[in-house]
């Protein structure tokens, strides 16, 4: 077991964003969360990362209760994530992004005071090759196209040492070619033993990639299972198509 969520509740005013939400993510698998807009998928990700504090419930990561940890402490435990909207450091170069993700000693001021910025070029190039981003390492994030920024965002999440990768809509707004590429990248990562939890609206992408799917609606998990079973589940059809 990697991640276990038990009876999570989260209200925004009178709106129940998460309602008794429970799920368990197995190690080494690609798991997807799907559901209509506003069903609570991103809120669930934000609760897992503790960017949003939950009202009730428990979150365990590798058997450890992570409820009281801050977002950066959860990240240090080995949860790496992306957001729906690409979050990059717009005035920094590609190599800076990856070096920040790779380094664990750059926060120490005195240790770094007279050090020059160093880059593990071999490692950085390896990760960029994996995601297929062929740009100069000195390119600034603002000079990248949307698709390239999406790839850099993914590269940063991969570079950060982790045991669980949370991807929030990894192919949203991306052209069909790049979707294929991202699917390949995720498969390759999975082959290497990565545990991936993703949110996605593109059903073909999800059904083709995920081994396990959770369906959310109104903040609840309404169905769970293998892709084929989910496709024929009446509750799921109702959530997507209505009565």
């Amino acid at each position, binding site marked *: 077991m990697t991640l276990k969520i038990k009876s999570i509740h989260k209200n925004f005013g009178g709106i129940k964003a998460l309602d008794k939400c429970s799920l368990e993510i197995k190690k080494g698998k690609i798991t997807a969360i799907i559901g209509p807009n506003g069903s609570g998928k991103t809120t669930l990700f934000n609760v897992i*990362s503790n*960017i949003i504090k939950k009202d009730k419930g428990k979150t365990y990561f590798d058997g450890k209760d992570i409820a009281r940890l*801050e*977002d*950066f*402490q959860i*990240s*240090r435990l080995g949860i*790496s*994530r992306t*957001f729906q909207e690409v*979050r*990059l*450091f*717009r*005035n*920094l170069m590609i190599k*800076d992004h990856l*070096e*920040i*993700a790779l*380094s*664990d*000693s*750059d*926060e*120490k*001021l005195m240790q*770094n*005071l*007279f*050090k*020059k*910025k*160093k880059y593990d070029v071999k490692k950085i190039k390896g990760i960029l090759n994996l995601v297929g981003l062929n740009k100069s390492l000195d390119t600034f994030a603002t000079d990248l196209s949307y698709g390239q920024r999406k790839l850099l965002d993914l590269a*940063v999440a991969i570079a*950060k040492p982790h045991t669980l990768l949370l991807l929030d809509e990894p192919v949203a707004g991306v052209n069909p070619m790049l979707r294929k590429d991202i699917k390949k990248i995720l498969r390759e990562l999975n082959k290497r033993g990565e545990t991936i939890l993703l949110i996605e609206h593109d059903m073909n992408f999800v059904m083709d990639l995920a081994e396990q799917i959770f369906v959310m609606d109104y903040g609840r998990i309404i169905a769970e299972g293998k892709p084929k079973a989910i496709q024929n589940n009446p509750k799921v059809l109702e959530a997507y198509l209505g009565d």
Partner: protein
Amino acid sequence: MIWPYLTHLLILIGIYVILTVSLNLALGYTGLLNLGHVAFFGIGAYTSALLTKAGVPFLLAFIIAGIFASIFGYLLVLATRKLKGDYLALATLGFSFVIYSLMLNWTGLTRGPLGIPGIEKPSFFGLTISSTYSYLIFVAVICILSVFVIYRIVKSPFGRLLEATRDDEMGLRVLGKNTFKLKYKAMMISAFFAGIAGSLFAHYITYIDPSYFTIPEIILLLSIVIVGGIASIKGSIVSTFVILLIPEALRFLALSSSILGPARQVIYAMILLGILLLRPRGIFGRVDLE
């Protein structure tokens, strides 16, 4: 006749270079829209003046001035840790007012509007820096050291994290970096140098009162940083020279003092407006601040 005047200007420029480069560390590199820098300057000036008046050796008072200002820097970040952008700017402006009010009203300590006269010239290791020329050398040494340390910080891996904090704090936190720690360290360093600049200022003009640490001073410091360029040390240095020297040209015109003061403010405003319209990133800036 001209040399003492030039020496005086260079001393002020040296002190302002420390102030603006250190402000750029917090504002430009870390993205903390800090309008409380002038308060750190004032805290340093008063701390050093009061301590030396109480018999503390100058060098110790000078260092304590920086440390005391940096403690206030930490407290300011702690109090405003949930704030960003405009809200942070307003809160730090409020901090400036609080410190100004303390300087003005805590008369038992600061003598209020009467100020502190007769602040002694620095002396250490049996050496008294009494002439303006020797003071210029002293300020130049401290200025170069300060700029060097800040330069090393921003060019280090730690500096890269400060820039990442400015660009996307949440994005950095999910990479496992404690941005609160980064922000308070940046602010403490920035405040430390503002504090020692305050000490240099107090011991140079030998008299301070609260009017030196008010809103026009904040505007002047911000103008220098913005004109020079956000996240550019070189920009802050060049801009300090430009902005402090241009209004000095007015002295050579036969203007009455009632016109001279407002004319300076008009010039500062015109330079700032011109730069914002023509080069929004400043002379050497490469970063847009949101």
